[in-house]
């Protein structure tokens, strides 16, 4: 089976369309970055509090918002998370709700606001929001099994973990009543817990709290690491090809990154650490694609010495087109599968890859390769003579002599 055979598309002839296309997308993204949504940084980079809450029943967002208001939290972002049947809600707070001395102040306030007032006042604890270590601590202090001995903490830890496992794995995180623990933990423990615990209708499943300092450092560091790695690639390509090849490849990567980040800005989707990992991945892909085309150009320059660079570039893109479409298509398939089936946690990550694979493939054909020709034309105009900047003829001659 073969999809493409001896294609002969004049890619360079369409360079103005490409330029227009790239400009539209980058400018739209940049406009959104500068004048609309900005770069929507996730909590990892901006700092702030994210609390993922699972409810026993379908949550009423207005009700939650009212509870947050009463607790004095200023404009929390409240949204449903994941599939509707999961009854999960994400509450996001700005940086200012974390404080220097108590990083988790925002989280504590959210939990308190969600627990209904009456039960809290009774001084009871919430079984759905008590972790195994706290439960162990409680059991050790009450000692319902009258263990007394040295190994009591270890034995209560086992019981506490059983209870926690049961709640998380069998009941999806939320118990409806302490009664459900009968049979899971010793009867004495359950009896004691029935006196001291109540069951709220939610459980906190996931918390991310990032202070301002870490966010800033991480932002700076991720940026620099990416720039350094682009620089490293440029130097390697300079060494293996010519400087202009390195520049072309890096410009194409910048183009892809800007458009992807622009997309996130347009959609107002948060750029988290995993999205950064996806952007690094797409830089890798784009670079890979570009090098494949460049490699073919280098090879053809040696073979077809009489053709113009524009013809050679066109020919090389066509020769590698089958491979480009296949590889990108297959990778796109994997990434799309990740986007569709990968679940909510991977959504931002796979979205960046879905956009990135498309743009990365496009840019190696539409940006990186034409740049070589544009550069050559510019040099020719400047010096008044046509030189091939490729696979440096001089270097080849030197090799031939040696």
């Amino acid at each position, binding site marked *: 089976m073969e999809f493409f055979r001896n294609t002969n598309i004049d890619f360079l002839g369409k360079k103005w369309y490409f330029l227009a296309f790239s400009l539209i997308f980058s400018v739209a993204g940049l406009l959104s970055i500068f004048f609309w949504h900005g770069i929507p940084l996730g909590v990892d980079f901006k700092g702030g509090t994210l609390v993922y809450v699972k409810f026993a029943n379908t949550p009423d967002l207005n009700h939650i918002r009212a509870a947050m208001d009463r607790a004095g939290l200023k404009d929390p972002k409240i949204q449903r998370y994941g599939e509707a049947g999961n009854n999960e809600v994400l509450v996001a707070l700005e940086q200012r709700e974390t404080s220097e001395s108590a*990083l988790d102040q925002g989280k504590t306030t959210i939990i308190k606001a969600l627990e209904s007032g009456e039960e809290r006042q009774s001084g009871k604890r919430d079984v759905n929001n008590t972790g195994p270590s706290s439960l162990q601590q409680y059991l050790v202090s009450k000692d319902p099994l009258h263990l007394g001995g040295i190994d009591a903490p270890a034995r209560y830890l086992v019981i506490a973990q059983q209870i926690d496992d049961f709640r*998380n794995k069998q009941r999806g995180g939320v118990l409806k009543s302490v009664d459900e623990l009968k049979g899971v933990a010793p009867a004495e423990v359950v009896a004691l817990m029935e006196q001291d615990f109540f069951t709220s209708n939610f459980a906190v499943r996931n918390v991310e709290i990032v202070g301002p300092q870490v966010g800033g450092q991480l932002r700076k560091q991720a940026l620099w690491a990416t720039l350094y790695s682009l620089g490293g690639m440029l130097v390697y390509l300079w060494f293996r090809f010519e400087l202009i090849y390195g520049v072309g490849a890096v410009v194409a990567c910048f183009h892809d990154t800007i458009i992807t980040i622009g997309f996130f800005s347009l959609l107002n989707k948060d750029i988290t650490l995993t999205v950064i990992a996806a952007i690094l991945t797409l830089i890798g892909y784009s670079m890979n694609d570009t090098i494949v085309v460049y490699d073919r150009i280098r090879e053809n320059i040696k073979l077809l010495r009489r053709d113009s660079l524009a013809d050679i570039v066109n020919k090389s893109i066509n020769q590698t087109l089958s491979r480009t479409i296949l590889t990108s298509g297959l990778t796109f398939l994997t990434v799309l599968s990740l986007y569709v089936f990968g*679940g909510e946690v*991977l959504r931002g990550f796979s979205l960046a890859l879905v956009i990135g694979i498309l743009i990365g493939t496009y840019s190696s054909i539409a940006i990186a390769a034409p740049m070589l020709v544009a550069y050559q034309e510019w040099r020719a105009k400047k010096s008044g003579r046509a030189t091939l900047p490729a696979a440096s003829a001089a270097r080849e001659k030197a090799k031939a002599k040696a």
Partner: protein
Amino acid sequence: MIKNQTLKVGIIIAVLIFFLFGIFGIPKSFTPAGLLAAMQERIHLGLDLKGGTHLILQVQVNDAINADSDRAIERLKDDLKSKNIAYGEMVKPDPQNHPETFHVNGVSPQSIGDFRSLVSDRLPDYDLTSGPNNSFTLTMKPSIVKDTKTKAQQQAIETIRNRIDQLGVSEPVIQEHGLGEYQILVQLPGVDDPARVKEIMQSTAMLEIRQALGGPYGSEQEAMQANGGILPANAVLLKGKNIGGTGQQGDQYWVITRASAVSGSDLRTADAGRDENGRPDVKFTLTGEGGRRFYAFTSAHVGERLAVVLDNKVMEVATIQEAIRDEDRITGAFTEQQTQDLSLTLRSGALPAGIKYLEERTVGPSLGADSIREGVRAAVFGMVAVMVFMLVYYKYAGINADLGLILNLVILLGFLGFTGATLTLPGIAGVILTVGMGVDSNVLILERIREELRHGKTPPQAVDQGFKHAWTTILDTHVTTIVSAIILFLFGTGPVRGFAVTLSFGLAANLFTAVFVSRTIFDSILSRHRRGEALSI
């Protein structure tokens, strides 16, 4: 040729077995469940996949410098007194930002020589500079400052590790965090109870015994009034619990010396117990050196009061009846659990400085499991689709590519198993890029072989040329990406590193499978090939 071929196949099988061992070790049973358990033991999943608590905290290293310079001040005072060198006062101008600096004002002019030699003799860690009016500034040497700060961080790591150990968490990570200065990363798999963890960790348990100069006072104002509006230079006002049942409600205030007679590092043991009235208390004993200092302190101050200060809070004040050598206890309004916790924190050593939390993440165990399940399902689905496509598109040659892909994953996972590197979500991004580039390598080779065949080459020639040409491309793409992965590893932390690690491993494996393994399979197909027969590609 045949012999050479056998050797190559041998190498491939050896590599396969080696990395399978990397993934599974020697499993107890070969059932799917047994293999899964063996794999889970070898390949460490990051907290984002496994669930747990992740904390980044910063050691307030200036605390340690302050403690050191406070001790230096006290020592200098004692020495000056014993040498009869008169001076005006000693002050620390900016303990917040410059804890390493203090001034000695008004040293009597005739003793300046003695003063200089005393400082260089007794406080070799400090640089002495003179100012106007016989005043002097002592500054801790920068190398010593750095050293003290690093030590404070190291000790904090050790202390936290000891405390966490007593919580019974398996495979905790407690290490220096590269992102900022004096940061510590704490990762506790399976713990979704950060409040309790922090309770154990955060209690700095900076235990000190200091001298109580005055108190208790009902309020700050009252304390200041009693001291004529200004505190002695060597003293601070500290809050304390209502001690001794004076009938007052709420906090009390005490005037306490800045320097401590003994501190947490002088502590040998601490145990929770009860005093003669049955109230929970914590008994502690001191090390030899600490005991000697405590003895010197108590014998010099009989009849005066000492204060047990825990984290800058006065826990207890007692009149010194007689010289005490190396035992004391803390009694307060404690519950039994509090005395248990306190003795635990004291036992595991004092934190040399306070800590501040910078980041806190908890991944619920079920959420981590969900994202693994969904991610793995999606990845397997994608991979299977890719492999089926390769078979359809390239026929028998597709088997070649598929085998390479599977071997690639085995090597990558085996690497992770051998090196103990953790697999995180960004790490999976690295795996995806690896798989993508692995597919690409195969497509490059196969497309090139087809192209050569179209140009009328015989199958062996086409295979040879195809590999030769594709090889330069594959090498360039892989080396470029490995270069970037190495740079990301060097300059990145945490997540970025996880990506870089799996990517470099994966690409190295790729070079092997795409070029060596694939070539060997092709050669063995060709060797059974009849002349003139078409290649299934």
